[in-house]
Each structure stands twice: as structure tokens, then as C-alpha cells.
């Protein structure tokens, strides 16, 4: 029913994920911050690549939300990660592949072959997983 526009900066960010398999943030001087996803403050900025590695900080165990009817994708959990090069954590999808999910687990980004123009177009997996890009589950 609603049609939301991702905005100028958001569209660049999502397009970069879709077409260039690239994660980036919007670096501004005023305010001094690297925004991922990007935030428009009406001030000058530039795109800065981040990743592909990241550190897992925490995640939501599937069994704690499975009965809620929430739209959590099968085989994925919601995680908070600190992507290499980013300044602050962000919410992302994580595919643990049976790994322990402990704080500090090293991850690497994976990109979907298809695209939706949203945050499901990429996710993170432990670095011991296959190095090739995986298809979206």
C-alpha cells in the first residue's frame, strides 16, 4: 500500500549493494560521522567503502522469536555487527551455519544473486564458510 522512496543517498547505497556487491557508508564532516546506512544531513560528504569483514557483537536466537510470527527469514538470525571500517554497529542478517555466535566471531559479507532493494540483499556468514557468493535462501 505504501510506496517509500529510499532517497538519493539510500538509493545509491542499495544500488551499490545490488550491482557492485559493495558495502559503503556516507562520510560527512558536519556532523563528523560515517553513516551506514547513509543519512543525509544536507552537508558535504563522500562514499567510503566498508567491509567485507565484520565482527559479530550479538544476535537474536531463533527459538526466542520463532513463536511470535515475526518475519525472520529461515536460516537467518538478526545480528548486530561491527563492519570493518564502520564506526558504529548495525543490524544485519547473519547466517551462522551452525557456528557458536559468540561475540567477536569474524564474519564476511555475502551478496544475494537477485535483489529486492532492501536489507535482505546482503548478509554475513562466519569466515570459515564457502568463499563463493551464496544464493539467497
Amino acid at each position, binding site marked *: 500500500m505504501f510506496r517509500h522512496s529510499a532517497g538519493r543517498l539510500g538509493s545509491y547505497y*542499495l544500488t551499490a549493494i545490488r550491482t557492485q556487491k559493495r558495502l559503503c557508508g556516507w562520510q560527512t564532516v558536519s556532523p563528523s560521522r560515517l553513516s551506514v546506512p547513509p543519512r543525509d544531513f544536507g552537508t558535504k560528504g563522500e562514499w567510503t567503502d566498508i567491509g567485507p569483514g565484520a565482527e559479530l557483537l550479538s544476535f537474536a536466537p531463533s527459538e*526466542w522469536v520463532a513463536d511470535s510470527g515475526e*518475519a*525472520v527469514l529461515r536460516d537467518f538470525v538478526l545480528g548486530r555487527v*561491527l563492519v570493518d571500517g564502520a564506526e558504529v554497529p548495525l*543490524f544485519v*542478517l547473519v547466517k551462522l551455519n551452525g557456528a557458536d555466535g559468540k*561475540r567477536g566471531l569474524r564474519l564476511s559479507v555475502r551478496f544475494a544473486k537477485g535483489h529486492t532493494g532492501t*536489507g*535482505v540483499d546482503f548478509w554475513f556468514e562466519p569466515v570459515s564458510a564457502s568463499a563463493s557468493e551464496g544464493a539467497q535462501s
Partner: protein
Amino acid sequence: MRPGAVIAGCGWKLGRPFPDRLDVVIRQAVLAALAESGLSIDDIDSFVTVAGDTLDGISVPGRAEVAGNYGRRYLNVPSSAGHGLGAAVTQIEAGEAKNLILVGWGAATKYGAFDPRRNQADPFYARPIGASPRVVAALQANEILDMPGMEKSALQSYADAMAQRAWDGTVAPEAGAAPAWVRTGFCDGAVAIVLRRASDGKPGVAVSDFASISRAYSPEDDRLDTAEWVKEALSAMSGRGYTDGTEFTVIEAAAPTPIAEARALSALGFASDTDQGKFNPSGGGATAHFGQATALRQIAETSRRLAAGSKSSSRRPSKGLVLDLTGPAGQHTTAIMLQAETVQ
């Protein structure tokens, strides 16, 4: 800063759900608060309401009518109980209001069947990946579990104790796969608090200080640690540093989940395996959650406890602390200090 506002009367009700229409229960709470304050509705010049959009189906102007606000000064501050209290006290301190009623409510029992709060997540980066408030709270709970003192057995005891206190053992815990200390206990609630100027010299419980701190939907902190947010709110109060909680007779906290709540209280010396009786005597907010106004009940209960305690002439004026942590992870945190004494 000298306190400018005192709490003169309170009324509240919880239900699972309310047996009566929501507007009827709200009106009863307002009348009860007025009766306790000794003021009549004609004395009231201002209202502040705390009511979330998804929790009552009442149009905004209708909220003013439901609360009995006709002809008076009005603000609707639905983001949290702490923000509503801040708006109320500030108007009194600024000389804008003399006698004010703060009214908050929510019909949240239905959230147990369907949680519509997923609509709070932004549509691009949060909603598509399932980062709804419920899932964010579960993520935070998993993170807090690794923090010192957060043992599962003690957390289960805490959650059970809170449910017992809030519901007097009359309501069975909800079933589900998530542990009780991860689950939010949704209910219906309505609270009314009458505030007046301290300079009137009438009896009341002073709102001696308050401060609000916040984070965004995706907090930029290294950890979603409610204890750290509590410390920051306490530090933000005018002229105060961090306190260890020993100066307070009562300490209440309302957080999205029991584990987040227990963690918040740990900043004031609460240990999960030691119940000193002064932490969340009301049962807390996580097990009696009716939306953004949840902590108003705990402000009201604390005020009444302090007022009852101060009637004994042998006791020093007693202080209470209420910590409102609203939001998916409790990231809108307000610390409110109450003190029972007659303010000159």
C-alpha cells in the same frame, strides 16, 4: 535546582484485559487521582497525555476529551512516560501550569496475540530483515546474558517474582519457547497523576529531579547495556553524579524485558540473587507492559509508597527513583527522582 512540582494524587488500574471500556477506566483513574489530591476538575488548568497510536484507537483530539481535558491547556507526548512527566513538570516549573493532570494508557493485551510494533522499524533497512522491537529485545537479551551477574536461574526467579508482584499471582505466565525473562508481559493499563506547584506548600511527593537520554532505533553503542543508559541518565540530572542506589528507599525500573530490567537495576546495586525488597516492589514494567506509558504506574506506586512512609515522624524524608526505559531496547531512558517531604 529546587523542586517545582509535587505529585498530589494518583489513580491507576491494570487489566488483562480491562473488563470495561478503555475510556471508562481512564476516567476512573482521573477521578481517583483527583480525589486523592483534594483538587476538583475545576482546579485543573493543564493536561498531558501519554498514549501511543496503536494502543487505543482514539483520535488525538479524542484523547483530550477522554481524559477530561475540555477547556484546558493540552499536550500529547506519546513517546514515553518519562517524556510525558518531563513535559508536565517543566510546564509547572516554567510557570505555565498550576495544577496539571498527567494521564497515560494503553490497551496492549492484544499484543500478546499480534505484535504490531514491527511497524516501528524503518521500511528499508530494519523491517525487511525482521528487526522488529520484539526481535531487537531478544537480541539485547542474548547480549545481556553474557554480562556479569546475569545467571539464568536468577533471571527466572526475577521474572517470576515480578509477575507475582504485578498480578498478585492471579495470572498464569504466558506459554512460549522464549524464557520468561525474555518475554514482555502485555496488559491494559491506565494511570492518572495530579501534579501541582511545590510553592503552594501543600503535601505531596516532590519530583526532585529528572533527566532523559536517548539512542536511535539502531543504537550506536558497543553494547545494548541498559545499565550504562541508566548511569548516563543519572549523570545527566542537574548537579548530580552517578549514585549507587543506597540513598533510595524504593527503586523502580520499566524496561522491554525482565532481563533488560534486571540489568538496568544492577546499575543501582540490584543483584539477581539478592532481593532487598526495595527494587520493583510494584512488579516492574516488563511484566505489566501497556505501551509507552508503562512507567507512569511505577511513578504513581512509588509516590504512594513514599507518601505512606513519610507519615511516620521518626523517619527521614524518603527518596525514590523510577527508571523508565522505553523503546525496543529501552533506549529512551528517563531517570526520575521523587522525594516525600512537604516542600516550602
